[in-house]
């Protein structure tokens, strides 16, 4: 509760400063709108459904892309983490690819798929699959050997061993990577939407710029931050808590 109070005071001060600067007219309102203008833009965006549609479209791309990269990342990461050959060959390539900003995949995606849903999905997947893979690989290696031995001993082989033993056993080590993968996917998505395709939050941002509508730009930015925070705070926090309860780990403060 004490933390909540401090946070409330902090944000009150930030917004207060914002109001103050806007009132002082240091910059013209079309470049530096007051919080009230941004709030009105937000309200208007939801009222005419354009924000709802954008959120819907973006989240659909997000879930699809993230699901694909988690599926690929888990299989690839477990593979690289289990096989010395794959680690020495594919492992190095994956690490070097990670230094590539995900938006760099966009030209390739546009040439291959055109300005389409597939292109944006490709960018989202490429943006997040590597961090999922690498964390999965680390998890596979850090995981105590006893679990895979016990699993094999009890008749788990092949994909069953992966699905029912190796994956859940590596989850505590991997959750951070899944979280990071989500964050990367989110960034790649918005960046991709800004440049290439129609609809979605990224495109709303670009539209705000084209219309010289700073308060819409800020409103969409608030939305992007808000959604990112909600997913992190609700989905991943819940997963972490559940896992800590099951495993009996001390809750990370």
């Amino acid at each position, binding site marked *: 509760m004490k933390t909540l109070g401090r946070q409330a005071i902090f944000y009150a001060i930030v917004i207060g400063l914002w109001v103050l600067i806007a009132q002082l007219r240091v910059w013209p309102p079309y470049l530096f709108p007051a919080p009230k203008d941004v709030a009105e833009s937000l309200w208007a965006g939801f009222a005419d459904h354009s924000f709802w549609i954008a959120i819907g479209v973006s989240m659909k791309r997000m879930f699809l892309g993230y699901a694909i990269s988690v599926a690929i990342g888990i299989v690839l990461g477990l593979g690289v983490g289990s096989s010395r050959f794959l680690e020495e060959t594919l492992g190095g390539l994956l690490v070097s690819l990670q230094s590539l900003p995900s938006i760099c995949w966009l030209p390739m995606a546009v040439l291959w798929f055109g300005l389409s849903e597939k292109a944006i999905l490709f960018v989202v997947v490429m943006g997040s699959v590597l961090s999922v893979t690498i964390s999965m690989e680390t998890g596979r290696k850090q995981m105590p050997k*006893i679990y895979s*031995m*016990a699993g094999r*001993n*009890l*008749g788990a082989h092949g994909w069953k061993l992966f699905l*029912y033993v190796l994956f*859940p056993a590596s989850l505590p080590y991997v959750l951070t990577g899944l979280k990071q993968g989500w964050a990367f996917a989110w960034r790649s998505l918005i960046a991709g939407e800004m440049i290439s395709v129609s609809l979605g939050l990224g495109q709303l941002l670009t539209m705000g710029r084209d219309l010289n509508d700073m308060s819409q730009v800020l409103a969409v930015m608030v939305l992007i931050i808000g959604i990112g925070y909600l997913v992190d705070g609700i989905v991943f926090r819940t997963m972490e808590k559940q896992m800590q309860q*099951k495993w*009996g780990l001390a809750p990370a403060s």
Partner: protein
Amino acid sequence: MTTLRKPVVSDHRSAARAISGRLNPSSGFSVLHPFPANQNEIPKLRLRELSLSYKTNGGERLLALDRLDLQVRAGEFLCIVGPSGCGKSTLLHLIAGLHSPTSGTVLVDGKPTPGTGTDRILIFQELGLFPWLTVGQNVEFGMKMKGVPKAERREQAEHYLRLVHLAQFRDSYIHQLSGGMRQRVALARALASEPDVLLMDEPFAALDAQTRDLLHDELERIWAETGRTIIFVTHNVREAVRLGDRVVLLTFRPGHIKREFAIHLPRPRHLEHVDVAQTAREILGELRDEINKSLENEYRVQA
């Protein structure tokens, strides 16, 4: 039954070939090779010339197990004791098929085993219970892998949890249980796979004395009720005498069988019972002899 009355010689393998026995009426055990009493009987488990060697970090080859022969009757409770580092755990891993021997074969019912198989379930020293599953789900795991339908799985798990007196903890997670309870979950999980041979690797070593006493009683009862064949590895000779029909003594590296002792004490036994203590003392003497002998041998080689 023809029994050659001939003193056991120190070389285990020649003794095994002779199928000889020497009964010692004054104590609760006899030094003999009680198997096979009937040569037509196929042993439940047979280890044939099992050897394992591996390269150490220094690059030299280390012989961990040396042409180890062992036969275990169906329903027998066999205890393996030996000095630490004699490859007891390794032996269980080989039997379970988790590692491959350098040479030799593991046979169940006379048939060679291909790697792991749920006919041989190992209870690890560290147990290896799955912390992401509930107690009930842990017990069901083996059946789930076999594709047993859910309702049947639940029923079976229920049965085995009752057998180890943990039915009311079905929905708990592993970290919520005490050490003794975890042991019993591991036992229930192993039994639920209905193995031909149950392998136990120093399962009670980390427990306090009271809990261990209790688990000895439970294990003996469950063994009698289920009729499973059990191979139980321990460094505690008294525990081996308390539980086993037969106690097998392993030598220090390279591990092979030095002696076997059939334990004739009536059941149920107790760890503090005079006969158990007396028998254990005699076997312990042999064990010390073996340790000393191997140490002397090492010194002589080095000198």
